[in-house]
């Protein structure tokens, strides 16, 4: 049995989760706070959950210390300068940051609960299969390392009883070769579903740091949610100005070009990627496009709409366009898209993201359809 403190610990974790849920909006709009740790864990800094008490205010209290220094010298040393050894550095020191660890699933669940996101009904289920071996049955042959002692002795006992050589007063059970039993594997076919998220972003001059920050935060949460919904997920990144290229994640968020904007270039590349790597019948495809709404020419916009209708829409689960407000962007592309698809069209989801505070609502718009 576990020590009862494990239950206290579990309760504490539950409270932390509640806290996180209450403050989700703050975490999301302040971005960057959640640090991935390993493949499916996150570290979340959180103000310590204090039990409120009547206590002295930090600032008016002051205190006494030991060491060199003149009057007027600052006291605040490096955090590590506290007491080593037995001393309890920290008592009465006030703001201690608490760091909690959380798994992808837990975090995604909080997001899902908060936004009331529906579960995604994947298409292409049962298309991809893989085999998994599970040791669920018993066989008469196998390596020693898989020997099932309990079953082996049971067999031996049965044999001895049936042969009349078992003596209850002297209960020696000796298994012989044919009593041996081994764990053996059953091969199971498991159906999997896989998804690919293709992020496209306009990196022309009009997209500033703040706009990119918004895209970065938003993509983090979208990835998180999709990761919790699909067993396998791949993420591809495309940046574009007048031409498009595929890049890795880091470059995606860092690059800044100065050229003009041809959105169709990204759509074309996206089409190419899907055609070469992802069979729409097997994959759940999520193209996301972020820009400030500028496109060079009305002609190009026409090409874009053409591409959407002919290829991207039919093969993806949904197409999402997020327009990040910037000082230079005209917002024209949003108008063009909404004119064509309106709000009724289920496969095209349009969202305007004014500032960081709007990220959460925008995520809900994108993922709220359950597709």
């Amino acid at each position, binding site marked *: 049995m576990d020590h009862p403190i494990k239950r206290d610990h579990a309760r504490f974790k539950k409270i932390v989760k509640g806290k996180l849920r209450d403050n989700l909006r703050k975490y999301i709009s302040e971005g960057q706070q959640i640090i991935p740790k390993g493949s499916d864990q996150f570290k979340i800094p959180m103000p310590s959950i204090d039990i*409120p008490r009547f206590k002295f205010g930090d600032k*008016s209290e002051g205190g006494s210390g030991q060491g060199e220094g003149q009057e007027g010298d600052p006291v605040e040393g490096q955090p590590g300068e506290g007491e080593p050894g037995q001393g309890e550095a920290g008592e009465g020191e006030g703001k201690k940051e608490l760091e909690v660890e959380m798994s992808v699933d837990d975090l995604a669940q909080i997001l899902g609960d908060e936004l009331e996101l529906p579960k995604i009904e994947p298409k292409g289920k049962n298309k991809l299969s893989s085999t998994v071996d599970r040791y669920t049955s018993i066989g008469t042959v196998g390596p020693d390392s898989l020997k099932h002692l309990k079953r082996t002795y049971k067999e031996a006992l049965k044999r001895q009883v049936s042969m009349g050589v078992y003596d209850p007063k002297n209960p020696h059970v000796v298994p012989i070769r044919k009593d041996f039993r081994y764990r053996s594997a059953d091969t199971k076919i498991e159906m999997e579903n896989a998804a690919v998220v293709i992020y496209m972003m306009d990196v022309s001059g009009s997209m500033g740091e703040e706009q990119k920050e918004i895209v970065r935060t938003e993509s983090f949460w979208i990835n998180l949610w999709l990761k919790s919904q699909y067993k396998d997920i791949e993420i591809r990144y495309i940046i574009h100005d007048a031409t498009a290229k595929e890049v890795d994640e880091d470059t995606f968020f860092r690059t800044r070009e100065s050229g003009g904007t041809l959105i169709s270039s990204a759509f074309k590349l996206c089409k190419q990627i899907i055609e070469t790597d992802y069979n729409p019948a097997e994959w759940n495809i999520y193209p996301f496009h972020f820009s400030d709404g500028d496109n060079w020419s009305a002609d190009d916009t026409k090409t874009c709409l053409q591409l959407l209708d002919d290829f991207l829409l039919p093969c993806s689960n949904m197409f999402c366009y997020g327009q990040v407000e910037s000082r230079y962007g005209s917002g024209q592309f949003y108008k063009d898209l909404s004119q064509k698809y309106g709000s009724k069209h289920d496969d095209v989801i349009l969202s305007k993201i004014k500032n960081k505070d709007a990220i959460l609502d925008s995520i809900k718009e994108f993922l709220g359809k359950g597709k």
Partner: protein
Amino acid sequence: MLRTKQISGDLLKLQKEIQGYADDYGLDYFPQVFEMCDYDTINILAAQGGFPKRYPHWKFGMDYDQMSKGYRYGIQKIYEMVINSDPCYAYLLEVNNWLDQKLVMAHVYGHNDFFKNNMWFSNTNRKMMDVMANNGSKIRRYMDLYGVDRVENFIDQVLSLENLLDINHLFETSEVVQSRKEKEKKFLEEQDNGGYLVDDRSQALKSFMRSKSRSENDRSTDENSHENDIEIMAEKNVVKGQRDILKFLIEFAPLEEWEANIIGCLREEAYYFLPQRITKIMNEGWASYWHSTIMNNKAMDSSEFIEFADKHAGVMAMSKQQINPYKIGIELFRDIEFRWNTGRFGKEYNECTNMVEKENWDLKTNQGREKIFTLRKSHNDISFIDEFLTPEFCNRMKIFTYKYNPRSKRMEIDSRDFAAIKQKMLTQLTNFGSPVIEIEDPNYKNRKELLLTHVHYGVDLDMEFAAKTLNNLFKIWKRPVNIATKYEDKEVILAFDGKEMKAVS
């Protein structure tokens, strides 16, 4: 589920050896039991205040979380833990090396002697392990009956008020309580027998009040009498100035029986820990003094010298942010020993103006050891600092005070003046570092609102925390609650009526 085991073999031999040295020096201790445990267990124990069994609450889980992380990332390591009980239990960490264990044992005998002899501990329950375990099962039973969430929420509320204690209650033994009750009874009887009150209320009103107060004993569970209690108490000014807020709530708040019981449990535990909070400097100083004395003079092997020096120095490290109780404690004991060995005390020494003579003062009085043994019986941190802190000592220890500078927005060294340092240290130790909060009026505005007073000694309350605490107090008192305090030199009453928080100045 046995997570700790008593030491045996070489370690037991070591204990005998150290105990021999402790005897030689005249330490007077409870029977000492050492138990060995692994780091996870010591984290659990530390999170639970040293006790193997506590009531269920998430705060233990939180502390455990932080301790385990601190250990895992190598930020902190708990060397030892010792419990004020008879026999005195102490835990050793399995992974510590031989020298560590030696040091810890010597240190623990110091604590043990202090627990047994310091008078502030004289009324603590030495069977607290059992009491804690019983409180645990009591609260667990309440959780079964009334629901985990409900009980835990109530505990949260009570913990919010846990630091509102009255240190005078440490000497409140059952005999003291008994004799006081008798006096009160006598007083009331005298009143009845034609004893007259010195006010001009009518005889009828007085007799009405007396009959009320008489009936309070046999109708204490009755709802009406509860309200009357409050009126009478307010009238008589009996509870005004009471600092034992938890006791006041048990007696006068509209509580269900299980709620009152839980407050009782938590109050008992809070008072058990209180002596340790008011003797931190002395207790750690005393234990450090003895581990250092025993190790240096007796127990240490010459090959262990460097490592011991390193470990000892780590414990004694000075910090600019706060006084290290180990360091100040041990140095103050040594200083006192030196002063009483050389006779540097009393009128003659204090009034001596010849600095050369003062510097070389030595009357060979040799009363040092005796002096520190005596004072470890009678003092707590406040009287210890008040009586024995000297300007020379502060100078040698490089003590300073600091305060917040609003212009540069940082803490800055304020002063190295002796009077200022002493003042600051005493202020910080006053009321074990908690604000002094008293009951002012349980029938405030004649509406059974509760009015508390923060006795302001120059430091403001943290208003955000105060508001949250009032919120919790409201849930227990179930009527509006107020606290009168000063904030930025203005008198304010912070009021919470269940809906909104108001600051009335």
